[in-house]
């Protein structure tokens, strides 16, 4: 027992809800993510297959981070409206993962079931230069998977895609396009009319 008490607490032994959240070395993350992209690339034939693998890896994280973030900020009410959950992803979840809220949350004007979260430079892409022969690849598909996982486990099934969009002032930004499933939209309508 004495040995147990003197042992320094490992990060995985600590209670989740206590104190400020742990910060992970960005270098360590970048190397790990880089290895993961290489691993996935070696197992995919096309760029879209690689994106799908990255996205699938993110989904599990999204499910867990939703649980963890709601536990940490003592959230007792469940989000039932589309805008509410999107705000939550855009600020609270983004902060828990990347230390800041996402740059913008917008609605796609033409389609009422589509929303966009945009980010000038997603943390996962900070050191990644996409090669010229894969112009449509965006490794932030991983973050898109996280968004999808969080939305799905909150009861808002949606398809999420990461797109690279050329910015007006040169350079580019990443837009996460979120398209909710029809049942989410139907529920939203009945809630709005109630």
């Amino acid at each position, binding site marked *: 027992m004495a040995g147990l008490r003197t042992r320094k607490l490992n990060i995985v032994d600590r209670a989740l809800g206590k104190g400020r959240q742990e910060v992970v070395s960005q*270098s360590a993350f*970048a*190397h790990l*993510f*880089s*290895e*993961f*992209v*290489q691993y996935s*690339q070696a197992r995919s034939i096309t760029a879209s297959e690689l994106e799908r693998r990255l996205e699938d890896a993110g989904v599990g994280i999204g499910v867990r981070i939703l649980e963890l973030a709601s536990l940490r900020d003592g959230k007792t009410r469940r989000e039932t409206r589309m805008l509410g959950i999107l705000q939550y992803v855009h600020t609270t979840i983004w902060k828990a993962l990347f230390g800041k809220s996402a740059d913008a949350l917008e609605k796609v004007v033409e389609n009422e079931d589509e929303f966009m979260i945009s980010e000038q430079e997603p943390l996962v892409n900070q*050191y*990644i*230069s*996409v*090669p*010229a022969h*894969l112009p449509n690849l965006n*490794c932030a598909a991983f973050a898109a998977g996280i968004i999808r996982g969080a939305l799905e486990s909150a009861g808002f099934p949606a398809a999420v895609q990461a797109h690279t969009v050329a910015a007006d002032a040169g350079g580019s930004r990443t837009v996460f396009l979120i398209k909710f499933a029809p049942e989410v939209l139907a529920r939203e309508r009945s809630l709005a009319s109630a």
Partner: protein
Amino acid sequence: MSGGRLLSLYINNRSGGLIYQRNLSPAAAKLRDNDQLTVASMLSSLALILQELAPTSGSRPMSSLEANGFVLCSYDVPTGLKLVMLAEPGTQGLELLLKAIHALYADYALKNPFYELDMPIKCDKFDERLTRLLHDFTR
């Protein structure tokens, strides 16, 4: 703090192969691609020969070379990477600059999943950051 213009930058991998080259001034020697490769690998060999000539053992490889037309500063990394900067005589702070370029290499090439070790560096973000760094240096 510079005092003179930068001429050109060479980065060699551990086997003496050129993986990055950029001319930084119109005054830089204009070499064809193949000649650049040859010159760069000669530089690596020259540095090794000079190390053999050192009167004491454990000497570091060549770190600078001065001529009346230019100075050459070479920075060697324990992994075998060699960064070489050519500049006009009297340019100060070259070694610090090369260290900063090494940091960019560690970030934007090595953390990029599409970069293969020891292969030529073709990373947009590396180019971009390097341009910014050199701009700040020469200002």
